[in-house]
Every structure is written in structure tokens, then in C-alpha cells.
């Protein structure tokens, strides 16, 4: 008979470990209710608004923050309700989210990936944010999206236009309402062909970072498909302020069209320089020289002043749209702040409402439940017509606006005119399209 090692303490320890082990599956099965990162336990729920409050996109960030504050008001039943009145889903009742009053914390991305990750991390770990949203840069969006995936919270992207956000860098916990480079190309190309013909020689100046590359690829691909020839594509440093040495050789190249794959300060400066050099007054190959800005923003158009007149581009949304959703949002935002909202404000406001609605429909704040509610969700009444949150890549598919700098603006906000509302069918692509190749959504992560 061997002597056993059983002791009272040993039995208790073994029992405790076995008990914990047996209880674990029960705990995990309860994850859909409580077992996720920052599960709200009191009468409030905290959202994290991660926007550029300093740095070059601070004005755009300020507009995003205004939109989020308005969304919180509307979610909590204050104000006129804005787009809640026009949103096709009626799950939201103006009593917060799942009956919990919505509160928020803010972070400053500084339009730097590391700073944006640090502020998002702080809002998740210290402030208990259950969802992170906002931003004005694809680099930031990709970085914060990856962080949210790891942390087990939902990321509702703000202004991010690079294909990669819902392409090679897509994540199961991340969702983008804003359109992308491919959609800009698909919407712009037919309008350009109709206005400038199919026999053009294009010269691209491209911001030397991720968004610039995908935008150049998208515009080249779309314009070459309709007969344009790309003469040259030159990368310009992101920190460049004077583009004269890049613009001066354009006329010598034989190009008759300049495509500025620039955004923000880069766009303002390169367009200003191009107009200064008189490119738009020149005739090349028997045609009037033309300039194209694939991604327009009203705030940036304001910076470029009169230089934007007559120049084509694309945008996600514009305050002059006359659908009921847009009118309700403009009325609500304009009454509160005294000026119309930007496209950045619009996409952020919509993202906040879409998240809240998904939680209501899921009946849970658990990220995987929210993902399930958003995937394949079709909605209307949010300013872009019928919209689908595609399950394959978490990209919204909706109409795209082709716009042009207005010749005779009636106010400082009236800078762009809508040339065409490109139907969603024309900008839809297959999930495995080469411009979105690589990467995988993976599985949603509840964290905790």
C-alpha cells in the first residue's frame, strides 16, 4: 500500500482549481452578456472619441467632436433628434443606449499613429470606453483599428479614405462608413471622360504615404480603363510645403491633366502652386489643361480659396444634399453651431448612431454581438441613400458624390457644387478585388 500524499490543504487547493476549471466554460458562455472589455455596469456607458485636437487636422477634428457631441445629445433624448428622426432603423428611442445614458471621453490623435494608439489605449484602459471612434487619417485609422481588435472593443472609423482600412488592414472589430480611394476613382472616371474626353495624358503627384498610393492606384486604374494615358507619377514628401519644383516639369512632360493625390495641407499647397504656375491657363495637346483633386474636403477647399473653382473631385457627403436625413442633420448641426457640418462631421455622427443602433438591436454591448448586428446591415435616412455595411470587409457601400469647385460661391461654406450622385452599383467591387488584396477580417474579439 503506497502512502498517499493527500492532505487537507492539498484537497482544498485541488478542489479550488478543479472548481475554477469547471466554472470557466460557464463564464465564457456568459461572455455574450458581461464577459467583454469594459462591459457597462452602472447606469451609463462611455464612448471614446479619438479625434485630432492638435496638429494639422485640428479643425477637422474639432468638427468631428462637434458632431459626436450632437450625436450624444440625440442619443440621450436631448435636442431635436437630428437623423434619429430619419434613420430607417427605429431601435433607438432617445433614452441612451440600452437604457444607459451615453457619456464620452475624448482623446487627441495629433494625426500621429503612436499618439492615436496611446490616447485610444488610455480611453479603453483608464476611462472604460466600450467603443472608440474618430480620426482624420488612414494611418491613424489602421493603427487604432488594430489596437481595438487586440483590446476587444469596437472601432468605428472616422475620416479614412485609403483602400487598406477595409482592405489589407481590415479587422473584425473595425467598421468604416466613409468611402474609399477605389470608390473615388470609379465615381470620378466617367464624369472626367464626359467633361474632358477619353484621350488625355495625366501626370500624377502623389503624397508619399499609404493613402496617396491607394488613391493613385485607384485613379490610374479607372482613368486608364477609359483611355487616358498616365505620363508620370511622382511621389512627393508628406512634409513638402512648396510644390513648385514638382509642378514646373509638368508642362514639359506633355501631360494635359494634373492629378493631385494630396489631402489636407498638401492639397492646399500643391493646388495653389499649380494655379500660380498658370497651368489652368495653358493649352496642351490642343486641349485646355485640367487639374483633378480626387478627394475633396470643404475645410480644405476653404484653405485653397478661389483656386478650387471648376476643379473636379469626390466627396463622401455634402451639406447641400436635399434628402431628409441630410436636411435634418444640417438643421440640427447648423442651429447648434451656426455653420453647416463638414463631411468629417457627417461620417462621425453617422458612425456614432450606427454603433448605438447596433447595440440596441443586438441587445448587448458585447463587441461580437455588435459585429453581428452591423454585418450585412442595410439602412437609409442617413444622408447617403440606401447603404449596406458589407459583412465581407466592414465597408459601407452607398452613393458617392462627384463635386466641382463652385465658380460663384455665395458664402464661405458654399465652395463645392454636386455634379453627380454616383449610384452605389457603380462604386461596388468584389471583396477580393486586387486593390483590396491581402489581409483578413479574422474573428471578432470580445476582449476581457
Amino acid at each position: 500500500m503506497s502512502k498517499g500524499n493527500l492532505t487537507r490543504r492539498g484537497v482544498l487547493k485541488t478542489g479550488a482549481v478543479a472548481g475554477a476549471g469547471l466554472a470557466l466554460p460557464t463564464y465564457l458562455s456568459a461572455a455574450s452578456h458581461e464577459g467583454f472589455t469594459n462591459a457597462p455596469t452602472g447606469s451609463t456607458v462611455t464612448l471614446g472619441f479619438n479625434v485630432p485636437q492638435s496638429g494639422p487636422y485640428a479643425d477637422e477634428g474639432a468638427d468631428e467632436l462637434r458632431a459626436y457631441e450632437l450625436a450624444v445629445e440625440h442619443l440621450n433624448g436631448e435636442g431635436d433628434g437630428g437623423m434619429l428622426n430619419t434613420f430607417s432603423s427605429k431601435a433607438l428611442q432617445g433614452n441612451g443606449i440600452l437604457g444607459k445614458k451615453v457619456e464620452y471621453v475624448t482623446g487627441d490623435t495629433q494625426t500621429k499613429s503612436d499618439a492615436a494608439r496611446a490616447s485610444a489605449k488610455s480611453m479603453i484602459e483608464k476611462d472604460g470606453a466600450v467603443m472608440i471612434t474618430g480620426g482624420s487619417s488612414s494611418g491613424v485609422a489602421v493603427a487604432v483599428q488594430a489596437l481595438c481588435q487586440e483590446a476587444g472593443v469596437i472601432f468605428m472609423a472616422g475620416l479614412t479614405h485609403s483602400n487598406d482600412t477595409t482592405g489589407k488592414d481590415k479587422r473584425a472589430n473595425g467598421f468604416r462608413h466613409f468611402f474609399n480611394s477605389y470608390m473615388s476613382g470609379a465615381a470620378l472616371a466617367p464624369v472626367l471622360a464626359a467633361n474632358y474626353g477619353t484621350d488625355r495624358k495625366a501626370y500624377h503627384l502623389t503624397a508619399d504615404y499609404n493613402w496617396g498610393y491607394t488613391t493613385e492606384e485607384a485613379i490610374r486604374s479607372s482613368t486608364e480603363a477609359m483611355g487616358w494615358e498616365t505620363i508620370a507619377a511622382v511621389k512627393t514628401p508628406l512634409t513638402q510645403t512648396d510644390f513648385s519644383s514638382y509642378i514646373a516639369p509638368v508642362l514639359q512632360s506633355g501631360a494635359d491633366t494634373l492629378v493631385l493625390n494630396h489631402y489636407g495641407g498638401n492639397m492646399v499647397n500643391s493646388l495653389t502652386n499649380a494655379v500660380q504656375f498658370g497651368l489652368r491657363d495653358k493649352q496642351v495637346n490642343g486641349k485646355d489643361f485640367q487639374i483633378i483633386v480626387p478627394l475633396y474636403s470643404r475645410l480644405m477647399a476653404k484653405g485653397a480659396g478661389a483656386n478650387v473653382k471648376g476643379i473636379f473631385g469626390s466627396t463622401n457627403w455634402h451639406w447641400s444634399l436635399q434628402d431628409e436625413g441630410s436636411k435634418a442633420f444640417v438643421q440640427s448641426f447648423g442651429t447648434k453651431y451656426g455653420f453647416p457640418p463638414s463631411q468629417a462631421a457627417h461620417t462621425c455622427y453617422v458612425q456614432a448612431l450606427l454603433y448605438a443602433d447596433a447595440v440596441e438591436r443586438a441587445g448587448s454591448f458585447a463587441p461580437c454581438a455588435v459585429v453581428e448586428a452591423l454585418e450585412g446591415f442595410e439602412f437609409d435616412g442617413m444622408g447617403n441613400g440606401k447603404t449596406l455595411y458589407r459583412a465581407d470587409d466592414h465597408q459601407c457601400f452607398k452613393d458617392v458624390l462627384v463635386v466641382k469647385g463652385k465658380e460663384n460661391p455665395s458664402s464661405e461654406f458654399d465652395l463645392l457644387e454636386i455634379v453627380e450622385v454616383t449610384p452605389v452599383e457603380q462604386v461596388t467591387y468584389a471583396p477580393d478585388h486586387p486593390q483590396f488584396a491581402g489581409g483578413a477580417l479574422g474573428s471578432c474579439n470580445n476582449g476581457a
Partner: protein
Amino acid sequence: MDAIILQILNGLDKGSAYALIALGLTLIFGTLGVVNFAHGALFMIGAFCAVTLSRLLSLSHEVAIPGQTDFLGNPATRDVPYVFDIFGETVGASIIDWAVPLSILFAIPIMILVGVVMERGLIKHFYKRPHADQILVTFGLAIVLQEIIKYYYGANPIPTPAPAAFTGSFDFGAVIGFDPNTIIYPYWRLVYFAFAAVIIGAVFAFLQFTTFGMVVRAGMADRETVGLLGINIDKRFTIMFGLAAAVAGLAGVMYTPINSPNYHMGMDFLVLSFVVVVVGGMGSLPGAVLAGFLLGILESFASMREVIDIIPGINQVIIYLVAIVILLTRPRGLMGRKGVMED
């Protein structure tokens, strides 16, 4: 050949800005021995003097537009500038159109005042401190100044166009026998280059041909001896700080039509301007001007597609590479004086 001429022309206006900023930096370093990292901020403040005057001249009152509504459905209004009321619409529009050149007069007293306040209020306390302390405090000051500007003017660039008479470009190629449109150069950039040449000439003439300038030059060479002669050199150096601030400010004013000003524009020029000062030779005014134009033109050449195709990324580093080569072969820079920053 036409591409080479084009890049030389392109380098001239950028070189003009570098030269003007570096000239001010060298004046301050040569007189006060201070490494002023807030000098880029003075360039930026000058640009915002133009923005401010432009806004002042455009101050308006609202007039209702019968039968039209704004974006909220309220009765629409349009802004009528007060200068239209005072001078009539034609003259008023011309005054607003010429806001940038008029800003020169507006900016000179403001920039001198800013320079003197900066020097008397803060920088004079750091004369005898190590250069590292000076750099830290002036860099901090630059950040404070740009944040103040951002607070009041926002982060976005603000369009400040040149007068309508100077829009468009000059077909330089057609004049010298090349095909039309091969060498074009914006009129305002020609104005900027000419303006920079006049300012640089005026500063040199001031230092060379006036008694004040002679004392300052003597002070730069031997401050103690000048003081022993009973001359209050500190007062003159303070005035020189104000003058250097005015030079940077005027460079900023005239630069606004080239690139829409934003709060960060000073920082964009600061580091390169310091490289210009070092390459030109610390304390050497002609060196600063020469290096400014040289590096401006080199940067322009390095941005040519043909060059980038051969050496990718060269446009980002050319100035620093040239600086390394020059400092290895001429440690005091192109025209540096012996003994400056060598103690």
C-alpha cells in the same frame, strides 16, 4: 537645358525665403550670440500680419439679400466690406486685392515690437547661459507662439492671394528662345525674389554705410572694446533683434501668396534655415545669403523626376548631404569666421 533653367528659377524663390530667414538668424547670432529657434515663428507671425490686415480690410456688415435664404432657411445676407462704404466698391475692392503688399507697412512696426519684446522680455536673460539652454527656451517660445496663432486662426491654411495683377505666370522660355510653356514662372515668385534681393541689399547697406551699422559690426567683432568706448552696444543689439524680426516677418508677409499660411509654417522653414546658417558659416551674413540660394536651388534640382528616378528619396536629404560634405571640407562653412562657436 530648359529643365535646368526651370529648376534654377524654382530654387530662387525658395532660396530667397531661406536667405531672408538665415540672414535674420545670423544677425541675432552675430550680435547677441543667441541661437534663436523662435526665428521661424517670426516668419510665421509676419505671414499672419498679412492674414490679419487682409481680414481687417475685409471687415464687413451684413446686408439682406431679398428673396434668398441661407442653409438653415433663414433670410440670406451678404457681407459688404466697410471699405466699400468708405471708398466705393471699385477702390475698396482694389484695397482688399492689394492687402498683401500693404501688409508690409503693417508688419514692420509690429515685427520690430514683437522682436524687441521677445528680446527684452525673455531672451536677454539667457545671454550668458549655454547654447543648449538658449535653444530649449527659444524652441519652447516658438511652440507657444504657434499654438497662440492656431488658437486664434485655426489649424487650416488660410488663402491670402497676391493682387490680381500678379496672378498667372511669365513664359520665360518664349523670351529666351525655347518653346512656349517650357519655362514658366509665376509673376509673384519673381516679385518675391526681387523683394528678397532689395531687403538683403538694404540690410547690407544699413550695416555697411551707416554709423549705427558700423557700431554694430564693431560690436559683432569685439563687443567688450566697443563697450569700453562708452557705447551702449546692448541697446543697439536690441534694435538689431527687432530688425532681424522685421526681416523674417517681411519674408513671411510676401510668402503668403506662394503658400497659404498656417500656424506650422515657421517650423517648416526653421530647421532648413539653421542648416543654411551653418553651411554659410556661423555669423557670416554673406555666407547665409549665399548658402540660402545655393541650398534652395539644390533642393529644387533634387526634386526633378529624372533625379528621383536615379536616387529615390534624394529630394528629402540633399540639403543635409551637401551640408555634411561642406562641413567636412570647410568646417567653418562657406564663409565662416575663425573663432565663432569654436570656444
